């Protein structure tokens, strides 16, 4: 598969703070990439930089053969770049259905509100929220809101989907469910980049792991190799994890 997203020498600083340092990365269509690293490593900044929320200070981002470095978030979204937020961002007063309808309505030109709502119903059913379609988003539980975010992202018909900690704050049954959904999406042809702290999920789902530390890319490769990489153990996983993992594997 050809590369769908590539970052070449991407840096981003917030005045004195260097959040991303010369990151180069290529992601092929169909991959499920796990983006890991300690808090403050620049994972979310990387997503924000690709999506146009905080444009790169240096370097270029190419998506599906097009330079998107300077695009605004809504322009990137219309090209097929969708994301979910670490802190869920629903339209609180809208029903679950209308939340998803917004995504269908604004990401594709010429959509009518009626068509968008019909479209939204399918995506709600896919994430298992069809029973809550008419409930205001503010009344949903956290797990439901996370799935709502996912439905919203899917309604944009994305080519590439960033999942920013979709499993954080969920119990293990809910994590199971979310993981199954992610696999299903990937099988449907969507390339996925997921920021995730639960190593079990990362190792279960991802075909490749990328590790950020202090804004730098310190490892990139197959999951089994990356978790044995001393730099990664040092920066993020810790010795205990390595020993436990070593004992089992």
């Amino acid at each position, binding site marked *: 598969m050809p590369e769908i997203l590539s970052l070449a020498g991407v840096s981003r600083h917030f005045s004195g703070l260097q959040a991303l340092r010369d990151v180069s990365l290529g992601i092929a269509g169909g991959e499920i990439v796990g983006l890991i690293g300690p808090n403050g490593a620049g994972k979310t900044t990387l997503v924000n930089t690709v999506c146009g929320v905080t444009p790169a200070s240096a370097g270029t981002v190419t998506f599906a053969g097009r330079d998107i470095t300077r695009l605004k*978030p809504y322009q990137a979204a*219309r090209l097929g770049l969708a994301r979910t937020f670490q802190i869920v*961002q629903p339209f609180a007063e*809208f029903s679950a259905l209308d939340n998803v309808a*917004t995504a269908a309505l604004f990401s594709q030109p010429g959509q009518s509100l009626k068509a968008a709502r019909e479209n939204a119903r399918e995506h709600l059913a896919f994430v298992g929220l069809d029973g809550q379609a008419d409930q205001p988003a503010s009344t949903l539980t956290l797990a439901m809101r996370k799935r709502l975010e996912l439905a919203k992202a899917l309604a944009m018909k994305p080519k590439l989907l960033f999942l920013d900690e979709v499993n954080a704050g969920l119990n293990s049954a809910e994590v199971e469910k979310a993981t199954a959904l992610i696999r299903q999406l990937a099988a449907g042809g969507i390339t996925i980049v997921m920021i995730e702290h639960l190593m079990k999920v990362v190792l279960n789902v991802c075909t490749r792991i990328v590790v950020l530390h202090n804004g730098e890319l310190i490892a990139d490769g197959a999951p089994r190799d990356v978790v044995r990489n001393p730099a990664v153990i040092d920066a993020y996983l810790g010795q205990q994890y390595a020993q436990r993992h070593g004992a089992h594997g």
Partner: protein
Amino acid sequence: MTRSSIALAVLLAVLALLPLVGGAYALRLGTIACMYAVFALSWNIVGGFLGYPSFATAAFFGFGAYATGVLMTLGVPLPLALVATLITCLLAASVLGAVLLRLRGHYFAIASLSLVEVLREVVNNATDLTGGGMGLNIPLASNSSVLGDALFFFYAMWIVLALTAAMVIAVSASKLGFGLACIRQNETAANMVGLNTTLYKSIAFGLSACFVGVAGGIYAAWVHYIDPSDVFDILYSVKPIVMALIGGLGSPLGVVCGALVYLGLEEVVWRNYIQIHSGLLGLLVVLLLLFLPHGLVSLRTRLFRRKAGHA
């Protein structure tokens, strides 16, 4: 059309029958009522639908008054001057909106407030064109009797109100209205689902300005004389906010009712307590907001719930 839109249309139709029952005084009051309702409906687009607290109404009003006034002194007939005012106001406000609506919350409120001051100073200093602080005399638009004049301006203002209401109803049922509601609830998320928030905000600001500008133009032709401190009065910015709060934020029917109620209070208090009228009016507004925080539109559900409770 929703039920509240139909109710609004009926309310406006009833208002149009005013000349059948009232004289010159009632018509003057009716003209002001229409003007206030135009303010409140227009403010509701940015303040209610979009959720940005705008204090720019007086800026649009003054701009419209001077645009029409200056054009008329140059010999342009009133209808043509009003159309020109509408278009200029729409374009200028759209451009300004794209810039001003980058600010949020209090910052936007202050910026919109300063727009009034800036325009006032510009008009004050452009003496050649506007007469500056001396004010501007505007040629008579019609040469009819007192009552004929009153009738003419009442219907002129009523037509602007009808157009504003039609525009607001169309917006609230459209993709634009849906997008504005998205921005009000969560601007980051709106941007992320592919909504061009800058464009939507700029259109909203333009639409909230254009009919206020036309109302200003009609006002100028009506009173024949305007000066900067009269038409750029900050009270024109504050009143629509109070009206919208009295009526019910976001609801077109509500804000028009709010405008009528506000005008009623203003007039009654002014007539009976001329010495302390502003103080008393302020007190009434505070009491209304305290006991009816969601405005007049919430009365229906409140009464309904009480009845259900008794049953």
